[in-house]
C-alpha cells in the first residue's frame, strides 16, 4: 500500500468501480421502522459466475454459479442467472462459506474482573440486586440477546479473517446465561441477530462475583451440582423460595445446547461428569491441552470447541532462566498444535474458535499450523464452517452454501489454507464487505509500456504477490521500481538507469490496457499506455514442507511420565526380609509371589513360574506406606473455607493425576494417600483415598470400594485465629462456637432426614446424614484436649462415632476417652511450637496413645515429609521406645485400619493387594531408600528406571531447547521464560488456586 493511500471510505467506493459491483449504504427494509426520506428497497440479487465453489468441506464445484437474493442463497452450482442479477465474474476465484465461531463475547458488555484472593471482604450472599438466586456466580438469568449491541470495530476485525457468524455470550460466572447467535453484518441489531437464545453457557470460574463462595474448584463443582437439584425442586414452585429468577432461567435454558468452558483437560472430565449426573451432554470449549488424554476425551462423547492459541516458543537463551521451565511446558509448546489432529484421529466432533488468540488475524496461520501438525485440510475447513453450525444446531442457517441459508460467504484468490491466498471479500447476509481489494485482479505478468512523445518502449514485469505486485524494468540490468494499485487507479515509478532520475506515471487500469499521464526524467509531461503481453508462469512459492519431528505424549504429562501405561505382570520377590505386619512378624530370607496384582504366596524358595524375578537379597520388603493425611494431587484449592459447613464439596471432583508429587512419594515408598480437604472450616469437604497409580486418570487413581470420609476441623483455623484482622465475622470465632456449628449442623441433618419426600435435596445435609447413618466417616483436624473431648460429646449425642482425629497433638491427654469412644489417631511425629494450640505437643504422643490402646498412624500433611514417613514412624522408637514392627505399622497397617481398607492393604498377606516396597535397608533407618514401589503388582517406581528417566528428561529438554532457540533465530516471537509452578497445599492454605513458589517451604498448619 502506498504511503499516500486514500482514506478508507473513498477507497471502498473505488473498489466498487473496479469490481463493477453494487452494494452499499442502503438499508434493507425492516417493516416496523419508519423511513426518513425516499424508500430504497433492493433485493440485492447477485450471481457469482465461473467460480470454484466450496459448498462445504467435502464438496467442491468447479466453474459454478452462486446466486443470492434478499440476503439468502438462491442456488449453488449450475443454476440459471436471474435477469435482475448483478453478475460478477469470479474466474480463478474461490467461494467458501463464511466461518462460524461458537465462543465469542462480541457485542456484549465488558466484564469487570472479580476481586480474587482470600483476603477480600467477607460477603456471604450475592450482591446482585433483584429476585435472583443466592449465589452471584450463578447468572443463568443473563440473556446475551438482551445485552447485545453490534460493535462495528469488533465486527470488522472478525469479518476480515473470515467469520460471518458468532455465538456470543457474556463470559462471566459459573452459569453465564444464554448465548446469542449473530452475524457480523453491519445491519441493525435486529437483522444481525439470527437466534436469540442459541446456547446456555457455563464454566468453573466465578468471574466477577464478589461473593466468597465458591473459592475453590471443588466449590464451583458443588455449586453447579446443587443448582441442578435446586432447579429441579423449583419446578414445583415451592412457596418457601418465592420467585427465583435465576433458577427459573436455569430451567428455561435446559433445552438449549449447553456449552461448558474449561481451562484444563481434567476439567473436561469434571464438567462431563456433572453433565452425566444430570442428564446433560455439554459441548466443551476446550483449553488446548486435551491432546494429552485423548482416550478420556473420547469417553466424554462431547463435541469440542478447540482454541488455536498455541503457546509461543519460550525464550530459553538464558540457561539459568530456562532451568525453571519444566519439560512439560516445553513439550506442550511443541505438541499443542497437534490438538486438532488428535481430535480428528479420535473421530470426535469439533470446531475451532478464535477465542484466546492474541491477534485474531493469526486465525488462519494457526489453522495452517494445525494442518502442518497432521490435521486434514477438509476437516480444518469443516471445523470453521459446518461443524460449529451443526454443534449448536444452526446448520439450517449457516455453515455451508445451500439454497435457503444465509448468504454468508468468502471470496478468495485461491484455496483457503494456502498461505498466499488473499481473502478479498466477506459477504454476510448478502452484503459485501471488502477485506482486501488489492489483487482482486491478478495483474502480474509482462507489460509493454509505451511513452509519448517519443514512442519509447519499455518492458515491465510485475512479480511479487497478487495483492502486492513488485515492478521491475527489464533491460540490460534489470531495475526495480514501485507500482501501486488503488482500486482502478495505478501509479508507477522507476529509474531508466541505475541511480538515475525516475519516470513517474499515473493513470487508470482499464479492461484491456493501462493508460495515463506522467512526468519524464527531465520533468516534461508525457502520455503512456501499458499493454499486458504475457502471464508469469511461475506459481506462487509455497514454503517447502519439512517432516515433523515431535516428541511423544507422556502419561502423566510430565518429565517422569510413561510413554505407554504400565501393565500388570506376575512377580516373584526373592530372598528378602519380609515385614508382614501379621502374626508371623518379620520373616528373613523369604519370597513373595505377586499374581494379578495380588499377593499370591509367601514362603521360602517359591517357584517363579512365569513370574519376573526380583532379587530381594539383603533388602527389606514392607507393605506400601499409606498417608492418612495428604493434600497432594489436588487441583485449584484445598479449602472451600468460605462457610463453616461445606460438606457438599468433594476432593473426589478435583483429583489431579499430573502432580509430580505422586511420583516423588512413590520414591519414598508411599502407595496410597488420603487426600483431605483443608482445615479452614469446621465441617470441610469430603475426602478421597487414592492409590498412587502414576499415569492413571483421576477415576482410576481412586481406591475402589473404600468407605467415604469427610474432613472436620477444630481450633485455631476454624475460628480464624491466624487469618488476619479482617477475618473476624464468620461464625465461629471461639471454641464455644465450634460446638454450636457442629450441633446445629447435625440437628439440621437429623430434621432433614425426617422431612417428607418433597424436600429440597441438600447435598451439604446429605453428607451429614451419611455420617449419622455410619455411611461416611470423619477424620477431624484437632489439637487441644478440650475440643477433642467436645467433639466426642457431640458425636455421642448424635450417636455416631468419630473415626479419626488427625494432627491430634494433645491426643495423649485424652487417649483414654478416645479409646473408649473408638476413635483412632493420625498424628505428626514431632511437630510443635508453630502456633498456640500446639504448645503442649510432644513427640511421645503416638507412643502414649498406642499404649493406651488407640489405633495410631503417623501422617504427613506435607508433600515433602510424605517421602520420609518411614523415618517419621521411626521417631517413635526414639521417643517412647516403640518396637520396630509396631513403628512400621504406624504408616502401613494402622492407617489402613483407620481408612477401613485393612482387608486389602497394610500387611503382606496372601490375597491382599500387592502394594509393596522393597527397601535397600531396614525401612525404619534413615539410611533406607525405596528401591522399588509397587501398587497392584505394578512397579511404579524403580530406582534404576528412575535413572533412565533422568537421562530422558535431560535429552528431551535439550532437544526442545535447541528447537526453541531455532525458532527465536528465525524471528518467531517468543514468550519469556517463566518458572513452572506446582500446586501444593497444606491444611491451612486458605482458599482458591494457591500456587506455591518454588522455594516457599512454609509448613503452616
Amino acid at each position: 500500500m502506498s504511503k499516500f493511500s486514500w482514506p478508507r471510505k473513498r477507497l471502498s467506493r473505488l473498489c466498487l468501480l473496479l469490481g463493477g459491483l453494487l452494494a452499499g449504504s442502503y438499508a434493507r427494509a425492516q417493516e416496523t421502522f419508519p423511513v426518513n426520506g425516499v424508500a430504497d428497497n433492493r433485493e440485492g440479487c447477485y450471481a457469482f459466475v465461473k467460480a470454484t465453489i466450496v459448498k462445504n468441506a467435502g464438496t467442491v464445484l468447479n466453474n459454478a454459479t452462486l446466486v443470492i437474493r434478499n440476503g439468502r442463497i438462491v442456488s449453488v452450482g449450475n443454476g440459471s442467472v436471474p435477469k435482475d442479477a448483478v453478475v460478477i465474474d469470479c474466474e480463478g476465484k474461490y467461494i467458501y462459506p463464511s466461518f462460524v465461531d461458537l465462543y465469542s463475547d462480541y457485542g456484549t458488555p465488558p466484564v469487570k474482573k472479580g476481586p480474587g484472593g482470600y483476603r477480600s471482604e467477607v460477603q456471604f450472599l450475592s450482591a446482585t440486586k433483584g429476585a435472583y438466586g443466592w449465589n452471584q456466580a450463578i447468572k443463568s438469568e443473563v440473556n446475551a440477546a438482551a445485552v447485545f449491541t453490534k460493535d462495528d470495530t469488533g465486527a470488522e476485525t472478525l469479518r476480515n479473517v473470515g467469520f460471518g457468524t458468532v455465538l456470543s455470550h457474556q463470559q462471566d460466572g459459573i452459569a453465564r446465561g444464554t448465548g446469542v447467535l449473530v452475524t457480523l453484518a453491519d445491519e441493525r441489531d435486529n437483522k444481525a441477530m439470527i437466534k436469540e437464545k442459541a446456547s446456555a453457557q457455563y464454566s468453573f470460574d466465578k468471574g466477577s462475583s464478589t461473593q466468597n463462595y465458591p473459592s475453590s474448584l471443588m466449590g464451583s463443582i458443588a455449586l453447579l451440582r446443587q443448582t441442578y437439584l435446586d432447579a429441579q425442586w423449583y419446578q414445583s414452585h415451592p412457596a418457601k423460595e418465592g420467585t427465583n429468577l435465576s433458577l427459573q432461567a436455569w430451567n428455561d435454558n435446559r433445552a438449549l445446547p449447553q456449552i461448558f468452558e474449561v481451562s484444563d483437560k481434567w476439567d473436561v472430565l469434571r464438567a462431563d461428569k456433572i453433565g452425566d449426573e444430570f442428564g446433560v451432554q455439554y459441548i466443551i470449549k476446550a483449553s488446548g491441552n486435551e491432546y494429552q488424554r485423548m482416550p478420556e476425551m473420547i469417553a466424554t462423547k462431547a463435541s469440542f470447541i478447540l482454541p488455536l492459541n498455541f503457546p509461543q516458543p519460550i525464550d530459553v537463551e538464558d540457561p539459568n532462566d530456562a532451568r525453571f521451565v519444566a519439560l512439560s511446558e516445553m513439550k506442550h509448546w511443541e505438541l499443542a498444535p497437534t490438538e486438532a489432529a488428535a481430535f480428528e484421529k479420535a473421530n470426535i466432533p469439533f470446531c475451532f474458535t478464535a477465542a484466546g488468540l492474541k491477534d485474531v488475524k493469526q486465525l488462519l496461520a494457526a489453522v495452517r499450523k494445525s494442518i502442518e501438525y497432521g490435521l486434514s485440510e477438509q476437516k480444518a475447513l469443516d471445523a470453521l464452517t459446518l461443524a460449529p453450525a451443526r454443534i449448536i444446531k444452526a446448520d439450517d442457517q449457516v455453515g455451508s452454501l445451500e439454497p435457503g441459508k444465509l448468504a454468508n460467504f468468502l471470496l478468495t484468490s485461491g484455496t483457503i489454507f494456502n498461505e498466499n491466498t488473499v481473502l478479498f471479500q466477506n459477504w454476510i447476509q448478502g452484503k459485501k464487505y471488502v477485506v482486501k481489494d488489492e489483487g482482486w485482479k491478478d495483474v502480474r505478468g509482462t507489460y509493454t509500456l509505451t511513452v509519448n512523445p517519443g514512442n519509447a518502449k519499455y518492458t515491465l514485469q510485475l512479480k511479487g504477490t497478487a495483492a502486492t505486485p513488485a515492478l521491475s524494468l527489464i533491460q540490460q540490468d534489470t531495475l526495480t521500481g514501485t507500482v501501486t494499485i488503488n482500486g482502478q487507479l495505478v501509479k508507477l515509478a522507476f529509474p531508466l538507469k541505475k541511480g538515475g532520475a525516475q519516470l513517474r506515471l499515473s493513470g487508470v487500469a482499464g479492461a484491456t490496457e493501462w493508460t495515463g499521464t506522467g512526468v519524464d526524467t527531465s520533468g516534461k509531461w508525457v502520455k503512456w499506455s501499458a499493454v499486458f503481453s504475457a502471464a508469469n508462469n511461475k506459481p506462487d512459492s509455497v514454503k517447502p514442507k519439512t517432516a515433523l519431528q515431535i516428541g511423544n505424549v507422556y502419561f502423566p504429562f510430565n518429565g517422569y511420565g510413561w510413554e505407554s501405561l504400565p501393565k500388570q505382570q506376575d512377580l516373584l520377590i526373592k530372598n528378602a526380609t519380609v515385614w508382614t505386619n501379621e502374626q508371623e512378624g518379620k520373616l528373613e530370607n523369604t519370597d513373595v509371589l505377586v499374581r494379578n496384582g495380588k499377593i499370591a504366596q509367601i514362603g521360602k524358595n517359591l517357584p517363579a513360574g512365569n513370574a519376573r524375578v526380583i532379587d530381594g537379597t539383603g533388602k527389606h520388603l514392607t507393605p506400601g506406606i499409606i498417608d492418612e493425611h495428604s493434600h497432594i494431587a489436588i487441583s485449584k484449592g484445598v479449602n472451600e473455607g468460605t462457610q463453616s459447613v461445606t460438606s457438599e464439596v468433594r476432593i473426589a471432583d478435583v483429583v489431579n493425576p499430573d502432580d509430580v508429587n505422586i511420583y516423588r512419594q512413590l520414591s519414598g515408598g508411599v502407595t496410597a494417600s488420603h487426600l483431605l480437604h483443608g482445615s479452614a472450616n469446621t465441617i470441610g469437604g469430603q475426602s478421597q483415598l487414592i492409590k498412587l497409580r502414576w499415569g492413571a486418570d483421576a477415576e482410576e487413581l481412586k481406591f475402589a470400594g473404600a468407605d467415604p470420609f469427610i474432613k472436620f476441623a477444630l481450633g485455631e483455623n476454624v475460628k480464624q485465629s491466624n487469618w488476619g484482622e479482617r477475618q473476624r465475622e464468620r461464625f465461629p470465632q471461639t471454641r464455644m462456637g465450634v460446638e454450636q456449628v457442629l450441633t446445629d449442623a447435625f440437628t439440621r441433618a437429623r430434621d432433614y432426614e425426617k422431612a417428607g419426600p418433597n424436600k429440597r435435596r441438600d447435598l451439604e445435609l446429605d453428607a451429614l446424614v451419611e455420617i449419622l447413618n455410619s455411611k461416611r466417616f470423619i477424620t477431624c483436624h484437632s489439637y487441644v484436649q478440650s475440643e477433642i473431648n467436645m467433639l466426642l460429646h457431640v458425636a455421642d449425642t448424635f450417636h455416631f462415632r468419630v473415626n479419626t482425629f488427625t494432627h491430634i497433638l494433645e491426643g495423649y491427654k485424652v487417649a483414654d476417652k478416645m479409646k473408649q469412644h473408638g476413635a483412632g489417631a493420625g498424628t505428626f511425629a514431632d511437630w510443635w511450637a508453630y502456633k498456640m494450640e500446639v504448645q503442649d505437643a510432644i513427640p511421645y504422643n503416638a507412643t502414649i496413645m498406642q499404649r493406651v490402646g488407640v489405633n495410631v498412624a503417623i501422617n504427613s500433611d506435607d508433600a515433602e515429609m510424605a517421602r520420609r514417613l518411614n523415618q517419621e514412624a521411626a521417631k517413635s522408637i526414639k521417643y517412647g521406645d516403640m518396637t520396630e514392627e509396631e513403628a512400621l505399622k504406624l504408616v502401613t497397617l494402622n492407617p489402613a485400619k483407620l481408612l477401613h481398607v485393612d482387608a486389602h492393604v497394610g500387611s503382606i498377606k496372601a490375597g491382599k493387594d500387592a502394594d509393596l516396597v522393597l527397601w535397600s535397608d531396614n525401612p525404619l533407618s534413615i539410611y533406607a531408600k525405596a528401591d522399588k514401589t509397587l501398587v497392584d503388582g505394578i512397579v511404579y517406581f524403580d530406582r534404576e528406571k528412575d535413572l533412565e528417566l533422568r537421562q530422558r528428561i535431560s535429552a528431551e529438554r535439550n532437544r526442545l531447547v535447541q528447537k526453541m532457540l531455532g525458532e527465536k533465530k528465525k524471528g518467531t516471537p517468543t514468550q519469556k521464560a517463566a518458572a513452572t509452578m506446582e500446586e501444593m497445599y497444606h491444611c491451612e492454605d486458605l482458599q482458591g488456586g494457591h500456587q506455591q513458589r518454588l522455594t516457599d517451604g512454609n509448613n503452616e498448619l
Partner: protein
Amino acid sequence: MKRIILTYITALSCMAAFAQETIYPAPPQGKTIYLINATIHVGNGQVIENGALTFTNGKITAVGNNLPAPAADGTIMDLKGNHVYPGVIAPLSNLGLTEVEAVRATNDFHEVGEINPSVRSLVAYNTDSKVINTLRSNGILLAQVTPEGGLIPGTSSVVQLDAWNWEDAAYKKDGAIHFYMPSLLPPPSTPGRFPVTKDVVAEFAEKTGQVRTFLREAKAYLQEDKHNEVNLKFEAVRKLFTKEQKLFIHCNFVKEMLVAVDFAKEFGIDVVIAGGADSWIIADVLKQNNIAVVLIQPHSLPVLQDDDVDQPYKTAAQLQQAGVLYCLSNEGFWQQRNLPFEAGTASTYGLTKEQALSAVTLNTARILGIDKSTGSLETGKDANIVISTGDLLDMRSSVVTHAFIQGREINLNNKHKQLYERYKYKYGLK
C-alpha cells in the same frame, strides 16, 4: 562402672522431679571427666573405636586409644557400646527469638526496615525458651541466632544452649551480617488468580544495588576516623571489612549466587551463601572463589518438576565432591532438633557417615568461625560433647544420654519428657 550407673539414676530422678522452670543451667565443670571404651566420632572424619576422651575445666585435654590411666579423683564414664560426638551446631535459626510462630508477641526476629546491620539478635535471645531444651536432648548444643526480614536484618551471634541469660550464652558475638537477596526466579507462567506482574530482574537490580551502595559508602566512611555525625549502620559493618565478620548472603539460584560471589570479590569480604538450593550447579565456581555454603533444609522437595527426585538430599554430596566448604542447616527453631537427621539423609544420598557428621559439626564451626574452640573432639577445644547409645544421625538409634557444654554436664530433661512422664503417670504406664 558403678559410677556410670549412678549417673544414669541421677538423670532419671531429675526427670521425675524437675519442672521446666527447674531445669537449671549446669555449674562449671568440677572434676576431670574420662570417657572410656567409646566409639568416638571426632567430627573431622576420624572414628576412634574403643576410644577415650578426657576433659578438664571445660576443655578437651586428650582424645585417643591408649590414654594414660584416669586420675583417681576424676569421673569415669564407661561408654562401652555408646557413641561420642561433638555437639551439633545449628548454623541458622531464630531459636530464642520466637516462642510460638503464630503469636506475634512472641516473635522478635524481624525488625522494621530494609538495611539494619546494627540490629543485634543476641540481645533478644531468650535463654528461657522452652524450645531450647528440646534441641539439647537431641545433641544440638550451639546455634547461630539469626535475624530475618528486609535486606539486611542485622547481625547474628552464636550461643551455647545452656545459660542463665544471653550474656552467658554468647559464644561468638555478632559474627555475621545477613543479607537476604531478592529472588531472581522468573515469575510463574500461569496467570491464575494472583498474576505476578512484577519485574524480578529490575527489583533484583534495585535491591542488590541498594545493598552494594550501602557497602561502598560504608567502606569509604570507615576509611576516615573522624565524622561529624556517627553513622551506626556503617559502624556496624566495620568488621566485615577486616574479615572479623562474615556476610551471609541468603539466596538459592545460580545468578543470585554469582552475584554473591561478586560481592565477595568487590569488597574483599568473606561471603557465605545461605540456602544454596542450586549450589550443586556451580559447585566448582564456589570452590574456586572459596565461598562456603550453608545448605538449608535438605529435607525439601526438588526445586523443579524435572529435577532428580532426590536432588536436595544429594546436594551435600555434590558439594563435598567438589571440595566446597559447606554445612547443613534446618529451617526455623523447634525444627532444629531434626538437624542430625538432615545429615543422616545426606549420608544416605552420597556422603559417608563421618562426612555427614562434619556437615553439622566441624564444617559448621569453620563457617561460623568457631572451629578453634568447637566443632570436633580435639585437644584444646571446648568440651562440647554428646553421648548417644546409637547412631546420632539415625532416628532409629539416636538416644542422647549425656551432653556437655564447655565441660558442664547439662540437664537433658525438657518440657516434652516432663509431659510424657505426667501422662505415663495418668495412665499407669511404665
